[in-house]
């Protein structure tokens, strides 16, 4: 099946040739660019590496004040090191270009000749290829140096100058004004003497041959004896001599300082001991006070209890006193009472005795009285009885009643008389006499009874009186005893009361005393507490004093050590400066610190990663575009696929079938693009960018295996993966579903649109139906815009660097000194400029530190005083994202010292990456004299001896150098912008074209219904305008932001500010351009739409 279907591929390709060819071409072009960029990067990196080995690239170099002696060279060579003089001087030609003249080399950093040969004899010269190209000099031409014409016998390059920066602090290479040249030894000596020659740089290059480290070599060179008297440079000598006279003064000062610090240290040690003792004392005092405070608390409590007790005692004593007073009064009353009692008892006794006597007399008459009374009664009773009996007889007689006589006695007379009275009354007779008799008898009887009672009483009285008399006797004696006791009690109680009163007086005084004692104790306690607190504070204070003293001691110790080191160093320094052996080195540089070495390779390093990554992204986009066609084809052939499934075809067969074309297109595009990229039209063309900036020979194109595989395999694999992922789902449907060409209603398609016009509704439905295609267009737009933004950022950066550098350079001349004069030349403004480094993305960028006075007219910067305070240019913010208040560390890589600064302000300044300092603070920080400067700025040309200067830079030079970037980058950003436009147009055209293909039936139907072409266009094409518009509005800022984030890493090795801002009208133009391209494509597609015939509906129905 596969073989048969293969035939179909060709027919399919033939049928959709433009579509497939466009994508093939796009893939090929993209792969061509990617491979060209990556391969050129690889070829340059590997080529320069190989060249460096071949040309014996130095491991390090040293620049000296005095050339090595033969012995020194021998000593170095004895260590196994290859050494060669690379002395040079700058020669200014008549056209104001500068050639750095070297003598021919034999061992290290050999010259690679593009053309010609070595300058072997007098009058011959070899020029750096970039300088020759820029100045249109060819082999055989003559150039005038001094009074002589030199014939150019060779053009080439040297590996130690592949990035021919004139100064190490330069940010751009300008080969039109600067180059290197090689002459024979004789001519070197001749030209050195020419007045147009600058100071000679005594530089040596080394090959270490793995026999010594560069650090050891540097130390070795430092250790060489240095006789400053041998220094030929008069300005340097002047500087040394000026400085040397101060040696003794400095030494004395340092010695005094050492002694002073020693004494200070001893004093500190003693102070520390004293403070330790003081600390012990205060600690004990504090503990004692603490205990005292605790005792005082207890005392206060005790005194309070005592005071309360005394108060209670006083209260008790008062009560006792009152009680005793009352008791004493009672006792006295008792005594008086007992005396009265005794007197009474005497009277009672006397009365009792009289009573006894009287009663006794009374008792003695009682029997006679009693007998007389009884006789009276009995007599009257008898008389009454007789009268009554008589009466009875009368009655009996009168009546015959027979009444018996009465027998009356003292006990029955009452009843008998009463009965008789009642009886006679019954006889109607008067009984009053009876009753009268009875009453009389009762009276007498009472009398007898009274007499009896009287006599009994008299007896009893007599007996009682006797007893009373006896008792009164006893009572009297008791009363006497009682009186005596009461008297004693009264006396005792009186004494007790007096004692209690005295006690009360005592307790009152005691109470007052206890209150005073309590108040006093509390005051004492408060005082003790304050004293205790004071003792703690004292202890803390002494602790702090102790710590302070310790720190002081440590500080003084460090100071002592520091001063010791200082003395040692100053001795060393003084020895070096003032003895016969100061350090001969002005600069020592390892190859990796030398920005002139490996500049080309460093520049393209990033291209490799970015290129490979970008290639994958673009291929994903393009293969996705291909997959959209495949999906369209699958939908069209749905029933055929269903039929094939019905007949037993496997999904895998069809998946392979459908991903074959995209994979093959990607493969062929990748292969052809890749091969072209590796050819001279690709890689070589790309390398020419590098050749136009760096000074390297024509390097061979290399084709690394990974890049070949990348070009051959990556597009095909990406295409297979992308298409598999996209079409797998479509081919996973059942045979029946495919046969019926069932349309699945996916999310979004069934959206309710409410009340909208028919045209709007139709357009939105069409967009929703084609949303995958719309997304692809937007995706393509984003990718295109990323490429576009990359190009535009290149342009904007180069343009802004050029413009702002010129704008920010307000001086016309900058004189950089080797040996500054004491006085600043008239008309010049002194600055102190040095360079430190800061790493970013693996590159150590130069940070220029400019020390200026506040009134410096060439910088619109107000510096802040302070050794670590800087005013940063906005480049610092852009490159390192450091802002006001942040700390930032710069490194002196040569001395391996880090300097931490605080950013006080950010100012707009675009020349390199620059920070500003107050010049005095900077001098202090870097240990320079108060009047030190190394750069003079001026708006006019100054008369300064050339020998004192490293260089003179004019504003015109800067303007020219600033324009180099723009000139260099024009091809790059033109290519990127064109490429982005092509990708965008092709993707947009293809996607919109497939939209029309898919809508053929609908379009045909609308035409049948009578719609005009314009109306059909409105429905099917114009809706895309909204998609493109929204896509552009989203994609432009997204792409810009992404590239702005990534861009600094693309130019990580370039120390410049990063002004990537677009003006508002650039955005507007971009948006307009996108919409314009859309309209053009829309116009082209109109033709395709017009061609769709009404028969299409019928065709699709078979």
């Amino acid at each position, binding site marked *: 099946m596969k073989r048969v279907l293969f035939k*179909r591929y060709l027919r399919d390709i033939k*049928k959709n040739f433009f579509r497939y060819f466009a994508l093939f071409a796009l893939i090929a072009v993209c792969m061509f660019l990617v491979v060209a960029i990556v391969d050129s990067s690889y070829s340059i990196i590997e080529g320069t590496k190989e060249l460096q080995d071949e040309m014996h690239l130095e491991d390090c170099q040293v620049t000296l004040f005095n050339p090595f002696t033969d012995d020194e060279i021998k000593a170095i060579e004895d260590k196994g090191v290859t050494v060669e003089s690379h002395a040079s001087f700058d020669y200014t030609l008549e056209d104001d270009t500068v050639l750095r003249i070297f003598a021919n080399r034999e061992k290290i950093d050999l010259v690679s000749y593009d053309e010609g040969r070595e300058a072997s004899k007098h009058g011959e010269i070899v020029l750096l290829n970039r300088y020759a190209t820029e100045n249109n000099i060819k082999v055989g031409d003559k150039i005038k140096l001094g009074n002589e014409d030199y014939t150019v016998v060779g053009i080439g390059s040297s590996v130690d100058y592949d990035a021919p920066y004139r100064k190490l602090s330069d940010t751009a290479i300008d080969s039109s004004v600067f180059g290197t040249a090689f002459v024979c030894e004789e001519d070197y000596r001749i030209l050195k003497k020419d007045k147009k020659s600058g100071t000679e740089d005594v530089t040596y290059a080394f090959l270490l041959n793995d026999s010594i480290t560069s650090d050891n070599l540097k130390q070795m060179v430092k250790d060489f004896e240095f006789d400053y008297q041998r220094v030929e440079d008069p300005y340097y000598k002047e500087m040394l001599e000026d400085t040397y006279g101060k040696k003794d003064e400095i030494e004395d000062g340092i010695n005094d300082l050492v002694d002073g610090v020693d004494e200070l240290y001893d004093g500190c040690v003693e102070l520390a001991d004293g403070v330790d003792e003081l600390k012990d004392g205060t600690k004990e005092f504090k503990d004692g006070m603490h205990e005292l405070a605790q005792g005082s608390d207890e005392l206060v409590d005790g005194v309070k209890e005592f005071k309360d007790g005394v108060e209670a005692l006083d209260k008790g004593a008062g009560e006792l006193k009152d009680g005793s007073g009352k008791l004493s009064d009672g006792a006295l009353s008792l005594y008086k009472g007992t005396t009265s009692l005794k007197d009474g008892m005497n009277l009672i006794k006397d009365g009792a005795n009289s009573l006894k006597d009287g009663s006794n007399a009374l008792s003695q008459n009682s029997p006679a009285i009693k007998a007389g009374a009884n006789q009276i009664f009995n007599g009257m009773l008898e008389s009454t009885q007789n009268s009554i009996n008589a009466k009875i007889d009368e009655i009996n007689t009168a009546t015959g009643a027979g009444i018996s006589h009465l027998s009356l006695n003292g006990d029955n007379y009452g009843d008998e008389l009463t009965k008789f009275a009642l009886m006679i009354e019954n006889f109607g007779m008067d009984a009053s006499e009876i009753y009268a008799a009875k009453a009389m008898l009762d009276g007498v009887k009472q009398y007898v009874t009274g007499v009896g009672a009287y006599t009994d009483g008299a007896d009893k009285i007599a007996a009682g009186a006797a007893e009373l008399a006896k008792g009164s006797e006893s009572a009297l004696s008791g009363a006497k005893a009682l009186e005596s006791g009461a008297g004693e009690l009264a006396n005792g109680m009186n004494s007790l009361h007096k004692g209690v009163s005295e006690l009360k007086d005592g307790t009152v005084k005691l109470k007052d005393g206890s209150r005073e004692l309590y108040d006093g104790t509390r005051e004492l306690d408060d005082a003790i507490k304050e004293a205790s607190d004071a003792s703690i504070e004292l202890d803390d204070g002494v602790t702090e004093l102790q710590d302070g003293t310790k720190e002081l001691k440590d500080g003084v110790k460090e100071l002592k050590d520091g001063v010791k080191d200082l003395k040692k160093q100053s001795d060393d320094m003084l020895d070096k400066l003032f003895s016969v052996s100061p350090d001969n080195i002005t600069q020592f540089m390892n190859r990796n610190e030398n920005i002139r070495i490996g500049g080309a390779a460093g520049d393209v390093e990033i291209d490799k990663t970015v290129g490979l990554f970008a290639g994958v992204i673009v291929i994903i986009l393009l293969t996705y575009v291909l997959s959209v066609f495949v999906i369209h084809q699958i939908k069209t052939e749905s029933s*055929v696929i269903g*039929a094939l499934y019905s007949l*037993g*075809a496997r999904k895998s067969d069809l998946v392979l079938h459908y991903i074959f074309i995209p994979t093959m297109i990607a493969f062929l595009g990748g292969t052809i693009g890749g091969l072209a990229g590796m050819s001279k039209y690709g890689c070589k063309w790309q390398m020419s960018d590098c050749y136009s900036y760096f000074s390297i020979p024509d390097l061979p194109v290399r084709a690394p295996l990974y890049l070949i595989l990348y070009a051959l395999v990556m597009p095909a694999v990406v295409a297979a993966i992308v298409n598999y992922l996209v079409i797998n789902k479509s081919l996973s449907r059942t045979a029946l579903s495919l046969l019926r060409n069932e349309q699945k209603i996916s999310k979004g398609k069934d959206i309710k649109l409410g009340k909208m016009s028919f045209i709007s509704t139709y357009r939105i439905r069409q967009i929703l139906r084609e949303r995958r295609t719309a997304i692809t267009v937007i995706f393509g737009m984003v990718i295109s815009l990323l490429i576009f933004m990359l190009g535009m950022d290149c342009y904007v950066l180069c343009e802004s660097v050029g413009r702002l550098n010129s704008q920010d350079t307000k001086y016309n001349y900058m004189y950089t000194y080797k040996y500054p004069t004491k006085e600043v030349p008239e008309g010049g403004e002194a600055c102190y400029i040095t360079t430190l480094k800061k790493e970013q993305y693996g590159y150590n960028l130069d940070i220029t530190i400019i020390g200026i006075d506040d009134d410096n007219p060439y910088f619109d910067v107000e510096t802040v005083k302070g050794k670590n305070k800087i005013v940063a240019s906005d480049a610092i913010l852009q490159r390192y994202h450091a802002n006001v208040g942040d700390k930032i560390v710069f490194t002196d890589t040569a001395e391996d010292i880090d300097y931490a600064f605080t950013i006080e302000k950010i100012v707009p300044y675009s020349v390199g990456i620059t920070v500003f300092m107050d010049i005095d603070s900077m001098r202090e920080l870097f240990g320079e004299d108060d009047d030190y400067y190394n750069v003079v700025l001026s708006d006019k040309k100054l008369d300064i001896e050339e020998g004192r200067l490293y260089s003179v830079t004019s504003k015109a030079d800067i303007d020219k150098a600033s324009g180099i970037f723009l000139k260099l980058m024009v091809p790059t950003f033109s290519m990127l912008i064109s490429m982005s436009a092509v990708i965008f147009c092709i993707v947009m055209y293809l996607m919109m074209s497939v939209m029309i293909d898919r809508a053929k039936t609908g379009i045909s139907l609308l035409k049948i219904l009578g719609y005009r072409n314009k109306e059909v266009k409105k429905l099917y094409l114009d809706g895309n305008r909204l998609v493109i518009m929204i896509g552009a509005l989203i994609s432009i800022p997204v792409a810009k932001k992404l590239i702005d984030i990534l861009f600094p890493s693309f130019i990580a090795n370039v120390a410049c500010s990063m002004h990537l801002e677009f003006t508002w009208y650039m955005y507007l133009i971009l948006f307009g351009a996108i919409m314009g391209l859309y309209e053009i494509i829309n116009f082209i597609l109109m033709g395709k739409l017009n061609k769709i015939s009404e028969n299409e509906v019928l065709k699709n129905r078979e």
Partner: protein
Amino acid sequence: MYLEIKNVKKSYGEGGSFVQVLKGVTTGVERGQMCVIQGTSGSGKSTLLNCIGGLDTMDSGSVIVDKTEIFGMKNKNLAEYRRANLGFIFQFYNLVPNLTVKENIQVCEYLTKNPLNMNELLDVLGLTEHQNKFPSQLSGGQQQRCAIARALIKNPKLLLCDEPTGALDSNTSRDILMLLERINEMYNTTMVIVTHNNSIKNMVHKVIYLKDGLVKNEYINEIRIPASELEDL
């Protein structure tokens, strides 16, 4: 029985849209028989054919083709089953548009290890002279013949035809039916034909009449009328 269909039930949809298309169809076809399934629209003819062909799944029941039960087979196995046993002919021929007649047939030739002879088949189907033409260059009948050839090249034991003459005129339909008849005779291919055309039932061995998802009637034709003599096609 080469093809045994037992109590096949098939439904679509849920709730309000639930439709029971096959309600328990039981029937069978002997090896080498030509069988027509007839019925009104919605009676379940095509659904039954799809179930036999493994294009659609049954809810329950059993379909045994040459002693192989296909109910419950996984998709992968169904594909293998179709590959090994079946040929399909559709109303709309479903030919690959950018392959020639011969290439369209070859697409299926590679699906089997023992295909029929291509030239013989082309000859039998009268396609020899058209073998290098693309579908768009052929008439409907020629396209259908091509579709038949594509189905037959695998030498299937069972040929399932869904309205094979539905899109053709009367004469072309006769030609196609004659062709099927001839193939049946030549290769002893068992055929199940779903059709609306009432005349076709006269040329086949067995007629199954479906109504409302059930076999309403089925019978064996005692006397078959050759396709060439069929009327009202």
